[in-house]
């Protein structure tokens, strides 16, 4: 496939200006999020220090630890110190887990990323297939059935789907695992935390199958609402595109229904759905918090819940900032992809 895209064609000033605007708003958003989290959780009742020490601790012990974690200074001072550290890549130390926040967070990030992306792929495949089927067999029982199924899938959030899946495939038909990332019995030394990826690269497909078996249920739970949205939006977009003149013209050239849907309508129908899907994907990533908990999946979300329960302030901050970064990164990727795929934007 020829690609007529060369940098020389880009109206470079426009792209540059928009990128700078984007980066600026991103920083403001991240900064705002950091401020909110910082001040909100400083109001949290409950003393994390006290939770860490054995019952017989003296006040002096508590004070010493307080100073160690910088909790004796004013809130604004703490924020400035924290911010200074962040700029240098130091996110502080976790109070409950006694390790650098950055290490902890980066250690769990791959698990959540793998889960989210698996969910995204499932959603795109299912949603796309339903949209195409609904368009191919439109105005009939099949489309009506798809619409009803979609309506239900859309109305029920990932949490409930997770529970349904736990019941169906954990209890009724125990095909998949409903807890953890990997079977404890499997003894394997992972170099990275990207279990799924690494097991494929190292050609250990037995391990890979085990991991997929653990990931499939949580990923599916996350995917179902997104698949429904994709199916609905894409089908709508496809059906509208099918009325356009160039599609009719293609029919007179002798092309059949399947060709017309996939080669004439689909490439044009996909673009408008792309941005909305991007936003929905960030919601999906947000959903990993409770889904990971439900399936005891050792990812970022699960760690986040524990962090809140333990009032682990530095860890909470680190995780929230990371989530915020992920969301902005997703938005950025969507924008770039859209600009790349749209011939009108590509050539200015």
């Amino acid at each position, binding site marked *: 496939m020829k690609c*007529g895209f060369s940098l020389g064609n880009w109206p470079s000033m426009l792209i540059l200006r928009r990128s700078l605007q984007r980066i600026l708003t991103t920083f403001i958003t991240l900064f705002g999020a950091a401020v909110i989290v910082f001040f909100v959780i400083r109001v949290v009742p409950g003393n994390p220090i006290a939770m860490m020490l054995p019952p017989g601790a003296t006040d002096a012990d508590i004070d010493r630890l307080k100073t160690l974690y910088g909790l004796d200074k004013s809130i604004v001072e703490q924020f400035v110190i924290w911010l200074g550290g962040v700029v240098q890549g130091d996110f502080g130390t976790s109070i409950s887990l006694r390790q650098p926040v950055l290490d902890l967070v980066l250690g769990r990030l791959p698990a959540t990323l793998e889960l989210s992306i698996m969910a995204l792929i499932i959603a795109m495949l299912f949603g796309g297939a339903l949209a195409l089927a609904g368009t191919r067999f439109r*105005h009939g029982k099949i489309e009506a059935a798809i619409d009803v199924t979609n309506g239900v899938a859309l109305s029920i959030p990932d949490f409930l789907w997770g529970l349904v899946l736990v019941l169906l495939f954990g209890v009724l038909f125990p095909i998949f695992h409903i807890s953890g990332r990997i079977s404890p019995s499997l003894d394997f030394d992972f170099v990275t935390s990207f279990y799924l990826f690494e097991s494929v690269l190292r050609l250990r497909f037995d391990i890979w199958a085990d991991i997929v078996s653990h990931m499939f249920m949580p990923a599916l739970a996350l995917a179902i609402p997104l698949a429904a949205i994709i199916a609905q939006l894409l089908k709508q977009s496809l059906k509208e595109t099918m009325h*356009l*003149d*160039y599609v*009719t*013209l*293609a*029919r*007179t*050239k*002798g*092309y*059949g229904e399947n060709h017309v849907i996939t080669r*004439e309508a689909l*490439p*044009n129908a996909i673009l408008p759905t792309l941005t909305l899907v991007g936003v929905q994907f960030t919601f999906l990533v947000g959903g990993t918090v409770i889904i990971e908990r439900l399936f005891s999946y050792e990812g970022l979300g699960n760690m986040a819940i524990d962090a809140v329960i333990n009032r682990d302030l530095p860890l909470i901050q680190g995780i929230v900032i990371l989530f915020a970064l992920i969301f902005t990164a997703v938005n950025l990727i969507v924008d770039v992809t859209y600009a790349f795929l749209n*011939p*009108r934007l590509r*050539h200015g």
Partner: protein
Amino acid sequence: MNTLLKVRNLSARLRNGPALLRSVSFDVAAGEVRGLVGESGAGKSMIGKAILGTLPRAIQISGGEVWLDGEDLLQLTNAQLRQRIGEKGALIPQDPLTALNPSRRIGPQITDRLVHILKWRRSDAEARARELLGEVHIPDPERVVRSYPHELSGGMRQRILIATAFAAEPKLIIADEPTTALDVVVQKQILKLIKEMQTRHGTALVFVTHDLGVVSKICQTLSILYAGKVIEDTDVRDFFKGPSHAYAAALLAATPKFTDPESSLMPVPQSVIEAVREEVAAFDRGEA
């Protein structure tokens, strides 16, 4: 005489609704240009769609035959019809701004039929595309072939659509008001181009329009339609000398004349409209 297209008693209606085409009949010989004329909603576009098989779902054909090259198109299966039209027919659409796929380059859109139906090689097809662009007087065919539709003007896009229609040497082309969406200056050029191409390739043309001026320049025969019924069917020369039907005469009189603009803006008289409506109603009663 070589009759390519025979439309006999073609009738169509909205599903469970009113009639839209009332027993339309006409012939088109090979290489002939026939005009289908009428006001908006008279059904002229619908005839073209019925022939090409692109009627919308809501409209169904309730009777009649469409003989193309000795075959009744209405008796064919969907797949067969598609194949026939792909081989022998083509469409010049009305709006050049929406009739080209925005995500595909121009070249492939021109050569679709050549590659897909006639099974030409890609390189041969591309060469033919450049030739065709030359025939429609588009400068720099090399660049245009690789361009996307949004990079070109409306006039250029209409030329490309014309080139696309003639690409596979069809026997019959339906031109559905191809100049209506263009501005006046470009209209003249496009009309001239269509006539030129039609003469060169010897293709039969069914030219749908509401403009009698256009008809006088390009058509050899014409059918005038009112509410889906053919009111007059004659040679163009005879028509402009003096139409036989009152409605047709009124239409002719209503066409603004450049030479005498003031007096020539005459609407169709109410009596004539009522008369022709009564004709249609009588037809419907006859049917029922």
